[in-house]
């Protein structure tokens, strides 16, 4: 019963979602669909503290055991709890000017910096791909080079054909490649979803207890 009832709950919830998506018309069907969507979001929202608990456990363990770089764990915990206290008890609203300033002056620039750092890793990855020196790696790099040149004025200065070629690659072979992968992934997703709903796939339930 420790496994069968949860599987039944998942099956019922999944079936209600599918039925209310495909069979529309009566007002109550639409209402059930909207409410189930809200239930899903609400249940997910109340799970958000799992991340906080795990982060606190991991960093708390590092601090108490005085592991390597444990003082940075204090920084992580102070920042996390500090911003939670500030947001929930001091700012109290997403339109609070202090909260908006915190987002625009700290979170957004740090996000941009972290993602921009990836440009160096990408350059290193491109160098490694270039060193492979086979026909497929060359195709990948030529395609990437045309795409990059086609997006900057330098490409058009070299030849007006380059931006057109970049557009063609983006709209034809890129669409073909990505669509083929997407259709394959959709088959995989549908098969997995069916296995989950009927209870064949139970990996998400964790241990054998």
């Amino acid at each position, binding site marked *: 019963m420790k496994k069968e009832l949860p599987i039944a709950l998942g099956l019922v919830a999944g079936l209600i979602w599918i039925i209310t998506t495909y069979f529309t018309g009566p007002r109550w069907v639409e209402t059930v669909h909207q409410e189930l969507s809200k239930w899903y979001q609400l249940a997910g929202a109340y799970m958000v503290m799992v991340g906080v608990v795990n982060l606190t456990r991991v960093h708390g363990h590092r601090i108490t055991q005085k592991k390597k770089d444990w003082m940075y764990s204090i920084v992580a915990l102070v920042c996390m709890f500090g911003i939670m206290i500030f947001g929930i008890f001091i700012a109290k609203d997403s339109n609070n000017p202090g909260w908006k300033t915190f987002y625009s002056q700290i979170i957004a620039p740090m996000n941009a910096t972290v993602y921009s750092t990836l440009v160096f890793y990408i350059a290193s990855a491109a160098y490694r791909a270039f060193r492979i020196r086979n026909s497929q790696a060359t*195709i*990948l790099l030529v395609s990437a080079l045309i795409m990059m040149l086609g*997006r900057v004025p330098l490409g058009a200065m070299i030849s007006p054909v380059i931006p057109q070629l970049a557009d063609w690659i983006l709209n034809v*072979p890129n669409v073909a490649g990505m669509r083929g992968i997407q259709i394959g992934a959709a088959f995989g997703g549908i098969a997995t979803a069916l296995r989950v709903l009927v209870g064949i796939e139970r990996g998400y*339930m964790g241990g054998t207890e």
Partner: protein
Amino acid sequence: MSTNPWVWIQAFLTLALFSIIFVDNGFYKFAEHAYVGLYAGYTVVVTWFSYIRPSSQWIFRDHKYHYIIPIIIGLLIYTRYIKGWAWVSRYNMAFMVGVGAGFVLARDFKSLLLDQVRATFKPLFVSGSLLTTINNIVLVVGVVSVMWYFLFTVEKKGTAGTISSIGRVVMMVAFGSAFGNTVMARVSLFLGRLQFLLGDWLKLIQ
């Protein structure tokens, strides 16, 4: 140089995060841990503003008591931290995974499969337009050959191997295109940070 303290904090964090390019160091570790902590806290507060606080209003002010059920389902996840009661969290996971599976079967089935297949049914000869004809042939052959590449129940020899090779080439072009676009997006972000450092902070450029 700027006199705004926010700009100085941003500049310090930006330089600290960029310093990993040269060597792993204390400033980077500080900024990295601060980023992780701040973002985790930020996510919790956004969820609080968007769902958790409004949910109490829906229940007590609007008298929609049925919202207590998803809240209980959500809270069941925390039983995994109680020894002997961890199995109760399966109700939470089963609900989330069940609705997720329903979503895949209902919505993704249409958008990721049916719509994509339908969009691939193109005429292979378009009268009066050689370019459209070529584009359609490349598209159809590309999609079929990429799907063929992922068919592992057939030995890829002879014609089957040739089709598979075409699929690999099409995928390489697609990956190159995705790679190029990603590089351009990251370079754009990097230039934005350089503009901030040289403009807003040091005032060396306008």
